[in-house]
């Protein structure tokens, strides 16, 4: 695998609790992305980063925030999780080319 690690891989939480998903890369790539995958929706972009402390919103950013304090780490935070945020979350990286390399995913269940 390309050097992308997502943690945790599985998480079950309750509505209203905060959740943070971590994406760690060892490729020193500039660009990092968070997507969510849901049945009937494919993959949708939540947020992305084009450098340390440089982030921007994607298609479905409401209810999510991100931070990137180091090149290798990109954090996705759900401040107050809702059942609609039950999903599989994928991190992806890119060195600037169009091809994205994806992590293995983090499955989040919000009860």
């Amino acid at each position, binding site marked *: 695998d390309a050097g*992308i690690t997502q943690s945790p891989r599985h998480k079950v939480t309750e509505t209203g609790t905060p959740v943070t998903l971590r994406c760690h890369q060892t490729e020193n790539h500039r*660009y990092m*992305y968070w*997507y969510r995958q849901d049945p*009937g*929706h*494919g*993959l*949708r*972009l939540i947020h*992305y980063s*084009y450098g340390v402390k440089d982030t*921007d919103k*994607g298609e479905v950013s409401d209810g999510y925030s991100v931070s990137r304090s180091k090149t290798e780490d990109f954090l996705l935070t759900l401040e107050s999780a809702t059942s609609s945020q039950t999903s599989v979350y*994928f991190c*992806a990286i*890119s060195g*600037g*080319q*169009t*091809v*994205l*390399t*994806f*992590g*293995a*995913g983090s499955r989040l269940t919000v009860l």
Partner: protein
Amino acid sequence: DQQVKQNSPSLSVQEGRISILNCDYTNSMFDYFLWYKKYPAEGPTFLISISSIKDKNEDGRFTVFLNKSAKHLSLHIVPSQPGDSAVYFCAASRTRSGGGADGLTFGKGTHLIIQP
């Protein structure tokens, strides 16, 4: 409004035959197209891509065709093998004038089932 559309949620093909997966797009600013393959419980993996300046790109058993006037692309797999059973996502991007990479826009995916 969905900018990348895969209208077939699933497709069943016999082993050894040709699999053809279709994708349509609406945004004329897209200039690069990709196909990703995804197995259950794994992340999507890049399969093949094509630039808008080309109409065909081939890599082994996989060929992608692009028809810009129809805003349509297709992925051909010949011959189909059992290991090809997976979900296939079509994706598109556009070149930003200032450079950078603001991500890919994906279709909903097509579940390809190769039958023995």
